[in-house]
């Protein structure tokens, strides 16, 4: 009994350490980032389109970066979601067992490729292709979207496959027994029943895309501007922090933390929505 208690307490401690790390990081970012936002003005910070951190006086407007993150993420979803959902439906509903056994680990391997390698491939292969065949400088929203679209695939696919596989077999049998074909069963029964999990998969993929940094820096060109075409170079919120943190000091450094606060809020919101949707989906 005494031993049980000791073990329970030490396990509790270990479990709390992760939460503690989260608390420390959150506190630190908020403490460093929030004051400058209010000193500078929330509206001016969020909606200012100029970012001149070393000017005199400095200008901190992150709207172009928010737009950049938004554009690259939306593009990534436009590419990654159809491919990801399609793959998940194939893997869970149509693939023969032998094929699924080979494909699933291959996709998990994709998740294990370091993001710098994705960025490297993007720079060497994708950007020249865009420059030659579509025009512009190559480094662009489109480049970032394509690379991120591939990078979110493992997230989208594995969560979607889990969602589809958790649909009871009896639903499918019932649908087949009522004369539905394979695709009718998938479209009318399995997908609606897995809806919550599928939406969660998309939102977590979105979170992955918003948060990705290294690969994005390497392929988007990092110009601070509101993109006017898929071929425009842009800078994302994450890139902004990574690019400037090494030399920033004083208020500039605080403004980068403030950029982090914005990201933090976006990611938290996405996770909350994903969890809520997944839970509501399960109840229906």
């Amino acid at each position, binding site marked *: 009994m005494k031993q049980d208690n000791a073990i329970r307490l030490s396990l509790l401690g270990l479990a709390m350490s992760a939460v503690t790390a989260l608390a420390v990081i959150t506190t630190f970012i908020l403490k460093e980032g929030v004051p400058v936002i209010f000193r500078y003005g929330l509206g001016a910070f969020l909606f200012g389109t100029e970012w001149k951190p070393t000017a005199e006086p400095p200008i901190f407007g992150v709207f172009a970066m928010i737009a950049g993150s938004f554009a690259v993420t939306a593009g990534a979803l436009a590419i990654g979601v159809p491919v990801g959902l399609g793959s998940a439906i194939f893997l869970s509903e149509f693939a*023969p*067992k032998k094929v699924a056994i080979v494909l699933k680990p291959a996709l998990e391997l994709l998740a294990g490729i370091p993001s710098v390698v994705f960025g490297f491939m993007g720079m060497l292969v994708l950007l020249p292709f865009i420059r030659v065949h579509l025009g512009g400088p190559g480094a662009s929203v489109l480049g970032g979207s394509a690379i991120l679209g591939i990078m979110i695939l493992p997230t989208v696919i594995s969560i979607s496959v889990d969602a589809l596989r958790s649909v*009871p077999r*009896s*639903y*499918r*049998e*019932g*649908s*087949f*027994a*009522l*004369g*539905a*074909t394979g695709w*009718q069963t998938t479209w*009318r*029964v399995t997908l*609606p*029943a897995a809806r919550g999990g599928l939406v969660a998969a998309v939102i977590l993929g979105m979170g992955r895309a918003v948060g990705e940094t290294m690969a994005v820096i390497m392929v988007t060109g990092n110009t601070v501007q509101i993109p006017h075409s898929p071929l425009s170079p842009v800078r994302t919120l994450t890139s902004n922090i990574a690019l400037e943190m090494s030399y920033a000091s004083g208020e500039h450094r605080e403004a980068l933390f403030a950029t982090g606060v914005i990201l933090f809020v976006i990611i938290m919101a996405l996770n909350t929505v994903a969890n809520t949707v997944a839970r509501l989906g399960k109840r*229906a």
Partner: protein
Amino acid sequence: MTPIVEARQFGVQIGGNAVLREVNLGVRRNEILGIIGPAGSGKTTFLRCINRLGDLEPSLSTTGTLSLDGTDVFSPGTDVAALRRRAGMVFAVPNPLPRSIYENIAFGPRLMGTRSRDRLDEIVERTLRASVLWDEVKDRLHTSGLKLSGGQQQRLCLARTLALEPQVLLLDEPCSGLDPISTAKIEEAMQELKKQLTVVLVTNNVKQAARASDRTAFFLMGEMVEVGDTGDLFTHPRDKRTNDYISGRFG
């Protein structure tokens, strides 16, 4: 009259194991044929071959022939979806789809292209009456089918199967999880239904077969031991194994 369902030297192998061996069995039109036998005797497998739901098991293969109304069920040209509408199935565990009572029943007709609201309304009411559920749910047709009790869910599953207007109704232990009152309602529905169609009733409950079926077949370890009029089979079984089973010596 030719049998509506006819098995000749019909055998099933799953993953190399013989699950059914050389079954010869004809199901007569407008009868209720009870199939009894202990777990693992191949009753459910037989049922799931009639509507090809056995296809969901990729390692399943068959020998001999099985026909529905004169056409070979396993011939390569069979339209499986159409076959399943002709041989509708109700499962052991009620499995309504996660949608409303109304939509559960409209599912099959909609697949066949029925769009007219009046026509669907008519089908819903007719099938719910036929499955002795109408009076209990007529005021809440648009609530989820999952909110019904187990016995009601099973009658909903019966109703949605009837909406396909099948020739044969395949009932796979439909009352195994139900209380006696729900069971009685389903048996009542069967007696009415056999005027229009044929019922194959697989049951673990020997008494249910004795009560509800016109003829009874006894399956044991993949073999069809004997089939006969229910009265005869229960009073004068020809095979000793049948006698042992119905008198409760095993199973």
